[in-house]
């Protein structure tokens, strides 16, 4: 059953991601991207990462895609994206090569799986981890990163 869901989601995800780069109409491409985000949230669920799945929807679908849509609306040539440029073929080749390399690596590595049951819910342990054990500093650094992103974005956007 879960296998089926996995393959279903995988098909959706792959189709959506291919559509993102193939579809000319950039708004539709953005919608395909949203589809991808949703299916990734589905994977997260399958992987027992319920909190992250919800956050994926909240952040990616609710915020990032909105920003992308705003960007699409604001910039010209929106309706018909620019043509793909000439690197098309060797970009495909590079992608394929990388994929083969990766797949080779993945399939030839044996991971040691502990086989312990996954946690029932993740939000509590994540909280414990983030603010309790050792991740406090990264959290604050993330805050600083966000702050610098705000400052940067404002600085870039500011009226000159």
């Amino acid at each position, binding site marked *: 059953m879960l*296998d089926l869901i996995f393959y279903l989601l995988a098909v959706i995800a792959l189709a959506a991601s291919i559509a*993102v780069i193939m579809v000319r109409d950039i708004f539709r491409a953005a919608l395909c991207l949203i589809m991808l985000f949703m299916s990734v949230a589905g994977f997260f669920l399958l992987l027992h990462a319920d909190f992250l799945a919800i956050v994926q929807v909240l952040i990616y679908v609710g915020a990032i895609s909105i920003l992308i849509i705003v*960007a699409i609306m*604001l910039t010209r040539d929106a309706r018909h994206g620019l043509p793909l440029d000439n690197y098309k073929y060797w*970009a495909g080749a590079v992608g394929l090569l990388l994929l083969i390399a990766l797949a080779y690596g993945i399939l030839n590595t044996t991971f040691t*799986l502990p086989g312990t049951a996954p946690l029932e819910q993740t939000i509590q*342990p994540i909280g414990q981890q983030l603010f309790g054990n050792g991740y406090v500093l990264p959290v604050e650094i993330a805050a600083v990163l966000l702050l610098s992103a705000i400052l940067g974005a404002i600085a870039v956007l500011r009226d000159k």
Partner: protein
Amino acid sequence: MMFSVGLDHYLILSAILFCIGLVGVITQRNVIKLIMCLEIMLNAVNITLIAFSQYITPTLLTGQIFAIFVMVVAAAEVAVGIAIVFSIYRSRESVDMENFNILKW
């Protein structure tokens, strides 16, 4: 419950997604689409992280924590990226990568 889909499946899947994203990043000339492709790549990375977390350290959730930080980075990247797009669009009125040559700008 039966769970025959294993870590490998997720890793392969995210590898494919990553490569699609990569191809997109190389080929796209529209900056917004380029950012979208970057998002695909980051999502692929997230899937990997969480898959590892789930299969290798199911109780520690290190991968999930890492994924959170990836999301933060992704958000920052998109925000700044789009801000730059806007900023350049203001002066160049284009979203073509060709025009994003920072030296000329």
